[in-house]
């Protein structure tokens, strides 16, 4: 019985990791860019939400609603003014720029917000739970998972059924020909990164409500996000949900055996998948 409980907890935790991963996957899918500051941007968004709740006295959900357009602007500007300038055939410049950004962001947040642990408090919701008959699950973890499913569903709709999604795919296929269609690839990239930051805001909301956060935890979130993407298979958004769930389950099982093994168990699960399915669980046919 306890193991079933652990399994369900792990899957729900995977929802959070899928939220971490979705933005990373979107950006990589469209412009082959790996943003090493992705985790730090999640933490940054969490602080933004915290700041809004503190100054306006809003509940975190409403605060996230305000933070989302701000984060869109941050992502848009980051892409427009920095990343677009280093995007090219050589993968080194964008990697180093985002690595520099990661270090700068972490330390900037450390100065501004101090190293203290913070939390987005939502009162009773934090400890609320729902009895599903065979297991009892926390309301918040369930909400996280549902939000991840909804976010991925929406992203897929955008990607495959809207004009914007068509532009994303066209620019990803061939930026030069896309520009002959009147699309400006750099503007499209900027919108994509902005969109990724909206998802980052959602991820930050649940990160901050479920656990403590401080400026140093970004890189670990990047690693979870990355693992979910690779396990899922590059370019598959639903895959990130499966990937997140695998990492989540491995972590909760590891923690159940020995609390010190939680993180390690997640990493090991990732390596095992990489060993037996190097292209992930749901690889896209081409690429």
């Amino acid at each position, binding site marked *: 019985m306890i193991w079933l409980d652990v399994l369900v907890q792990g899957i729900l935790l995977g929802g959070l990791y899928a939220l971490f991963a979705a933005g990373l996957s979107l950006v*990589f899918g469209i412009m*082959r*860019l*790996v943003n*090493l500051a992705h985790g730090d941007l999640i933490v940054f968004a969490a602080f933004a939400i915290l700041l809004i709740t503190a100054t306006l006295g809003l509940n975190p959900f409403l605060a996230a609603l305000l933070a989302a357009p701000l984060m869109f602007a941050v992502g848009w500007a980051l892409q427009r003014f*920095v990343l677009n*300038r*280093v995007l090219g055939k050589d*993968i*080194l*410049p*964008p*990697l*180093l*720029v985002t*690595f*520099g*950004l*990661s*270090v*700068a*962001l*972490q*330390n*900037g947040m*450390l*100065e501004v917000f101090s190293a203290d642990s913070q939390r987005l408090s939502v009162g009773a919701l934090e400890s609320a739970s729902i009895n599903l008959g065979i297991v009892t699950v926390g309301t918040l973890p369930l909400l996280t998972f549902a939000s991840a499913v909804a976010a991925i569903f929406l992203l897929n709709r955008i990607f495959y059924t809207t004009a914007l999604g068509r532009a994303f795919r066209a620019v990803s296929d061939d930026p030069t020909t896309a520009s002959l269609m009147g699309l400006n690839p750099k503007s499209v990239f900027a919108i994509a990164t902005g969109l990724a930051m909206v998802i980052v805001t959602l991820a930050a909301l649940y990160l901050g409500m479920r656990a403590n956060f401080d400026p140093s935890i970004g*890189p*670990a979130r*990047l*690693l979870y996000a*990355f*693992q979910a*993407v*690779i396990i899922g298979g*590059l370019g598959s958004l639903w895959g990130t949900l499966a990937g997140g769930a695998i990492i989540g389950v491995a972590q909760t099982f590891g923690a159940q055996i020995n609390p*010190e093994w939680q*993180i*390690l168990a997640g*990493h*090991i699960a*990732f*390596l095992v998948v*990489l*060993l037996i399915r*190097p292209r992930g669980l749901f690889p896209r046919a081409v690429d």
Partner: protein
Amino acid sequence: MHQVTTRTRASTIAGIAALALIAVGLILPAFAPRSLIQDLFFILTMLTLAQLWNLIAGFGGMVSVGQQAFVGIGAYAMFAGVILMGWDPVPAILLGGLAAFLLAIPMAFFAFRLAGAYFAIGTWVIAEVTRLVIAQWKTLGGGTGTSLPREATSDIIGVETIANLFGLRDAAARDVLAYWLALGLAVATMAAIYALLRSRTGLALAAVRDNDNAARSVGVDARRVKWIVFLAAATMTGLVGALIYVQTARISPDAAFSVTNWTAYVIFIAVIGGIGRLEGPILGVLVFWGLQTAFADYGSWYLLALGVLAIATMLFAPRGLWGLIHDRTGLSLFPVQRRLILIDERSKP
């Protein structure tokens, strides 16, 4: 008549200057104050780490952000040799190189499976795994770490000789020994990289970096070249890591596997100085040392500024300070590009 050469006038002068510098470096402890020796130890070890990262990332196109794994495992292997097997710390440094080599095999195996830029995060994951596993090693202090026992540090081979030679106290003599080893590692690393780049393998590496497929079509086994370079760089990084911790004598997983100290700083040195050139990290480490001495007290502000500086360099001078100098003056101290020299028939005897 023509011949292919990589030599330039500047490189000949640079070669002679380098030999002179090494000679000065060797005899320096005879008159330099201890603080200078310590600073030079720091500069030399960081320089070596930066050259090694530059080799795999700048020349080989394998952008690793997991170099801290090799520093950490090297340092811990040295500690294990001293504490568990009773080795003298200096020969135990070799264990550090061996351990890093062994770790590099699975790391390369996994990371090479990852597409393009995801290689970077893959190396980071392995470094994290290594840190977490080491933190479980209770006999070496687990998560909190441990120190080298006094008996081990007090009679390191050679220290007494140095102490007598220069009339130094033991602690200062240990610094001198560490400094000499750092100098040796730095010179050996740079000489090896220089030789590698000028060899056929170096050409192959350039081809691999620019385009895997093209390299394959001209008969270069891209995978093999990448493996060799990655393993070699990891081994050297492990040696440097072990040496640094002989000097520090106190270890913990968080410090030995620190991304900031062993990868971020190292990348900044290479970026600021100039990626893909041997001269880059030399210049970069001097700038870095200057910044470190002047601003390290500002803590996070300092790191924030370093990050911004690295971004600005990539945006506005992607080939770093040395790239700027090279563009202005055409200067090349360690030329690896092959140049075709046309020899004037008439001027020949």
